[in-house]
């Protein structure tokens, strides 16, 4: 497996000058980082000539301290049984990338989700605006600087009483005057 | 006397039909290894539906849809003789009433189809087309069986057939068996239980024609369904099992016949519309043809 990975890394580096290899941590995983402009060409190359024909996922990582969003493409080769992670960094204030759903059609759904939840804009993406959240008017909710609890406190009316956080079973037993049986006492706090 | 007899007949049909529906649920539950609702559950359902405070309808035709069903059931009830010799029940029989019966039994679902079409709900429209297509399926063996026994006994009235059975001493079930088998197989389609319940199909189709009816309209549909079930069973008893002399015999014979669709429905899965039509034009039509051959030749 290691020789196969060396061969793949050498071929990728020969064709794309700005591919940097990151630390791999398992037998059948590879990790390369590229700039965002080379993403369509490297994905085409990996799919057509290297045998990584299956797109498993497209995810986004929020590096809040460094001010960047990282988009990761996970590809899988069923013949060699190797997974490759292709990473790019985007600027957090203006995250724009190229659209890749002409390579795999399912990338359309992943890109829609990322546009709604993280705010990443894909140029050339043709899809309806709303995906899961209807009538959403706030900031993209999956970013780390979006405080979910404060937003929920402000928008939805909360029922008072969560602050003291009593044990449900003991409170109900005390209220109704019942006794908790012996075999269940060991689960009390 | 006749009007009182008609009201008594209607009440008997309503009570017996609803009880049979409740017994259907109870027997199905026991087959599925659980206790079911009490046997009078259909009465409670009907009473609850009738006491709903608002009745929402989408226009005049939709409002009249359940009324067409009820009219068809009641007219059929008045034609079919419930007991053979009785002063109480109305005998509106005439020569040729079997053919009239064939027509009036299809009048109800057609009126319901008009009513369901006005709602604009696509589920109603699909349910109605499926129901009418399935009716095309089971009408063929049913009509063949009736034509066979009409040819064999040279009469087109129900009382004429009952008199022929009383005269010869044997039931029509034994003297024209193929007609009986074809009619029983057609009865499975008429009741609308599994496997031919693609019309009602609650989980698949949001219950077809009844999907926009609630409250009092649903009460009317349920009652007319029960009355119609009683009418069909009594018709079969009159034609094939020699009629009934008193209420006890009528109840025993109709219950025995009712067990056929109930028990078959618990052991079968639902057919699609084209599968059910293909089934009806298979063995039941074959038995119908045999019945006509037997009537003509022997």
């Amino acid at each position: 497996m290691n020789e196969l990975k060396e061969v793949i890394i050498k071929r990728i580096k020969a064709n794309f000058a700005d591919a940097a290899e990151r630390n791999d941590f398992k037998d059948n995983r590879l990790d390369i980082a590229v700039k965002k402009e080379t993403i369509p060409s490297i994905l085409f190359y990996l799919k057509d000539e290297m045998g990584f024909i299956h797109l498993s996922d497209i995810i986004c990582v929020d590096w809040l301290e460094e001010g960047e969003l990282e988009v990761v493409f996970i590809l899988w080769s069923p013949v060699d049984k190797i997974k490759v992670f292709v990473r790019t960094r985007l600027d957090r204030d203006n995250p724009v990338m190229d659209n890749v759903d002409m390579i795999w059609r399912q990338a359309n759904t992943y890109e829609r989700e990322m546009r709604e939840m993280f705010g990443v804009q894909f140029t050339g993406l043709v899809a309806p605006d709303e995906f899961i959240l209807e009538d959403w008017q706030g900031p993209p909710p999956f970013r780390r600087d979006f405080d979910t609890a404060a937003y929920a406190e402000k928008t939805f009316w909360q029922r008072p009483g969560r602050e003291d956080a009593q044990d449900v079973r003991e409170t109900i037993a005390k209220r109704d005057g019942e006794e908790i049986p012996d075999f269940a006492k060991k689960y009390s706090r | 006397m006749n009007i009182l007899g008609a009201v008594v007949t209607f009440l008997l049909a309503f009570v017996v039909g609803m009880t049979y529906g409740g017994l259907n649920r109870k027997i199905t539950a026991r087959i599925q290894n659980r206790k079911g609702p009490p046997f009078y559950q259909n009465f409670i359902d009907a009473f609850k539906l009738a006491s709903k405070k608002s009745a929402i309808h989408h226009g005049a035709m939709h409002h009249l849809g359940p009324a067409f069903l009820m009219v068809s059931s009641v007219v059929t009830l008045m034609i079919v003789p419930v007991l053979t010799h009785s002063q109480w029940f109305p005998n509106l029989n005439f020569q040729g009433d079997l053919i009239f019966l064939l027509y009036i039994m299809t009048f109800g679902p057609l009126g319901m189809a008009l009513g369901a079409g006005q709602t604009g709900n696509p589920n109603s429209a699909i349910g109605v087309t499926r129901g009418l297509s399935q009716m095309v399926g089971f009408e063929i063996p049913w009509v063949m069986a009736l034509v066979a026994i009409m040819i064999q006994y040279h009469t087109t009235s129900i009382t004429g057939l009952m008199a022929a059975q009383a005269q010869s001493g044997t039931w029509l079930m034994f003297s024209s068996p193929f007609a009986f088998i074809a009619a029983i197989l057609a009865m499975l389609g008429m009741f609308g239980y599994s496997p031919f319940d693609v019309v009602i199909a609650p989980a698949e189709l949001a219950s077809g024609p009844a999907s926009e009816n609630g409250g009092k309209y649903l009460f009317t549909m349920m009652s007319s369904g029960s009355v119609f079930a009683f009418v069909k069973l009594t018709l079969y008893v009159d034609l094939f099992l020699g009629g009934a002399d008193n209420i006890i015999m009528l109840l025993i014979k109709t219950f025995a016949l009712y067990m056929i669709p109930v028990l078959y429905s618990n052991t079968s899965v639902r057919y699609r519309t084209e599968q059910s039509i293909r089934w009806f034009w298979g063995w039941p039509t074959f038995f119908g043809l045999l019945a006509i051959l037997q009537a003509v030749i022997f």
Partner: protein
Amino acid sequence: MNDKNSQKIVDIIQNWARKHSIWVLAYGTGCGAIEIPPTMTSRYDAERLGVRGAATPRQADVLLISGYLTVKTIKRVIRVYEQMQDPKYVIGFGSCTINGGMYYDSYNTINVLDRYLPVDVYINGCMPRPEAVLSGFAQLQKRIAAGRATGAQHYKENLEWYRANQKKIIPNWVMPDYNW
């Protein structure tokens, strides 16, 4: 006097019929819907109480809100609730309808159902077991018999308050007015 007494007798008979024949709309809004099939089938038979599933809102009595409601779902649930015919009841199922449950700090789920729809009976648990569901139905039967299951009337009388709450969380209000 005769009118009031006969009205009371009619009410008693009607409530008896309504409590023994409850038709639940077959609509599972959240993850609590997975406890409905075991309750309705052979082992914990709910049909002996008269409870059976209804296919459309026009035929149903009870709307079983089983779990969390997002903003997208609550638009549809309000439409479904207003299509049902009087008298109708709402059962809040699971702890998400009581105080938000485990999604209390989510950006998209509502926390207290009582502000948007009138609830008659709550069943707590996450998810409640079928025995708890059956006891919830028995509680609803007791409330119906006592004449206290008046959620629908409360909704009609306080419609402005409910609508104000609903419009606050639904920015894009596209619902028609239903007549009842």
